[in-house]
């Protein structure tokens, strides 16, 4: 699954560590999602949507 997490994070000038801390996950998890090596669970995807104040489908989309 593709995502625009890196762009959204950069727009807010957050580091991966900043975002990870907000979500209570490891920085490695954020990196794995951004590089599309790992698809987050539904609760984590919802948490991301809530942080960026966007619908999930605007952050994650099909290839």
């Amino acid at each position, binding site marked *: 699954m593709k995502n625009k997490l890196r762009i959204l994070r950069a727009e807010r000038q957050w580091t991966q560590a900043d975002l*990870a801390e907000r979500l209570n*996950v*490891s*920085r*490695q*998890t954020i990196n*794995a999602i951004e590089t599309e*090596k790992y698809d987050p669970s539904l609760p*984590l995807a919802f948490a991301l949507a809530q942080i960026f104040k966007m619908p999930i489908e605007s952050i994650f989309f099909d290839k």
Partner: protein
Amino acid sequence: MNKQFPHEKAACRRYLFEVILVMMCYGVVLTVSLMLVRTMQPGWLRALVAIAPVAPIAGLFVVFGRYYCRQDELWRRIWLEAVALAAGAMTLIVMAGGFLENIGLPRLSSFWTYCLLVCLTPIFAFILARRYR
């Protein structure tokens, strides 16, 4: 370099503390158990004392479980995959050992299968974690 958050550092410290505590208990229980079984008459009580060191080992599983629950979802996945791979590798090694017994390799205790699983799991976790760096 991987930055660890304070809560991650605290989780690691807690895990190490619990492992050390359980292993110390294991050492004490094992020593006492070995001393007692030599002096006891055969019977169910002796068998109970002989298997007493299993209790702290069960405690070790509880510690592993608590550590697992404190991980985030990616690390839970890594640990699960690592256990599955370690179990597969352990099966292959034990099977190979079994076949080598046919050509004279001494018979090893089944106790070593547990040691193999415990040693292989973090190795596979380390290898799998590299995928997500």
